[in-house]
């Protein structure tokens, strides 16, 4: 390991150690932050409940992920490729981005009920615009010089897209996946916390109303696990496409 890695490991250990020791020492009230071991203990004791909440949560995240990244990236590519569409739609989309969309969640519940549909609807709307804007930014950053060069060497329109535009936009597609995925996870968990009958967010809220701090933190640890996994997967993917970056 390099000194840098050692330093990072030490930092992580210090944070986890503080989480365990500060509540035990009474520096932080246990109701606010229970020791790490108590949170993990709650996770083990109530593992049935927590594991049971995961399928619903994962399904909601996956469906929203497909909607957001499929739709957002595709639409982003199309809008990004057309200057007229960019001029017409981007100002609108940017203003829409500024609206705190969480205010829409009660409406979603009225429309779609307490089940998964309202979570998927909310998470999709919540993550769609930023993902789309990231995809648009990636397309507009493409240098037209490469496509022009390919054309000079006889590339057809289809070959220009296949061999130049598509590979060149891979990094921005991965960036859009990264952002879209992170926001979808937030969207689903928040929606579950605000009103649901199942799911990880629902469990966190229920334990909170019971003032069961270890239970709340057990849920938080699981959410961290999900976002951490997503982050690691996307980093891998990012390294795979690093060579496609234009520099």
């Amino acid at each position, binding site marked *: 390991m390099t000194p840098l890695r050692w330093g990072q490991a030490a930092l992580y250990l210090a944070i986890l150690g503080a989480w365990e020791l500060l509540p035990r020492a009474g520096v932080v009230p246990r109701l606010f932050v229970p020791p790490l071991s108590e949170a993990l203990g709650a996770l083990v004791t109530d593992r049935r409940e927590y594991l049971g909440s995961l399928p619903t949560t994962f399904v909601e995240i996956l469906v929203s992920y497909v909607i957001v990244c499929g739709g957002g990236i595709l639409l982003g590519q199309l809008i990004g490729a057309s200057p007229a569409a960019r001029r017409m739609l981007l100002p609108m989309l940017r203003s829409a981005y500024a609206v705190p969309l969480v205010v829409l969640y009660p409406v979603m519940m009225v429309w779609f009920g307490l089940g998964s549909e309202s979570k998927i609807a909310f998470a999709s709307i919540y993550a769609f615009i930023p993902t789309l804007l990231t995809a648009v930014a990636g397309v507009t950053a493409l240098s037209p*010089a*490469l496509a*022009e*060069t*390919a*054309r*000079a*060497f*006889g*590339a*057809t329109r289809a*070959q220009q897209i296949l*061999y*130049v535009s598509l*590979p*060149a936009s891979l990094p921005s597609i991965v960036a859009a996946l990264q952002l879209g995925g992170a926001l979808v996870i937030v969207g689903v968990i928040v929606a579950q916390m605000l009103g649901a009958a199942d799911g990880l967010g629902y469990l966190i809220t229920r334990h909170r109303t019971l003032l069961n701090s270890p239970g709340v933190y057990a849920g938080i640890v699981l959410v961290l696990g999900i976002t951490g996994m997503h982050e690691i997967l996307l980093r891998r993917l990012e390294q795979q496409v690093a*060579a*496609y*970056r*234009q*520099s």
Partner: protein
Amino acid sequence: MTRPLVAIRGVTQRFGVDGAAGVTALEAIDLDIPDGQFVSVVGPSGCGKSTLLSLIAGLRTPSSGAVFCDGEPITAPMPRKVGVIFQEANLLPWLSAIDNVAFPLKLRRVPKAERLEAAARMLELTGLAGFETRLPHQLSGGMKQRVAIARGLVQNPAVLLMDEPFASLDEQTRMVLGDELLHIWSETRKTVLFVTHSLNEAVYLADRVVVLSARPGRVVDDVAVDLPRPRRFAMTSGERFGMLKDRIWQHIKHAERR
């Protein structure tokens, strides 16, 4: 006299702004370029030098007049007859040097083994043997431009268009690459059209220097460079070299002052 390899006949290029009068970049250009000639094109900034090359490359069609290559009118890129080298190397960043050179052949669906063999030969010709697997970001500016030259040569086109290919390189690198270009040219006998801002480079490399006027670009002089070949660096300080350069400079000086 034999038929010219590249013939430019009464070419005018206007860039309209939505049908309005717009800008005339080139006006009534007539040029005959015989097979195997090395022609430099110089002129004041914005005189349409690059536009002229893009017309021969088939990247655009002239507003009026026509361009012929080997007797055939150019209406679209003809990559097998005309190779292009731009100011920036414009390499695909995710392809290795050899794959970049082989790219024009891939577009034509040449079998992989065959196109890699051709690309390897071109990399050797441009002094890049041993760098086949490097990615563009692992190469210096001069090396990238060598890859671009190899890519321009890989289909063995009769005509090589070079649009200020050394403009973004430092002085030493451009002198070395200039000499190597002459070496490649003497071995392959391509017809070269070389656009440049550097009068030294224009005279040193070429058989003939075509001087364009400020916009709208017209041919104001056509100078035969009667220096012996092979060219030597010492010639650049000779009297004849200075006279040729001075004659070209007189045209450009007036235009740039306006």
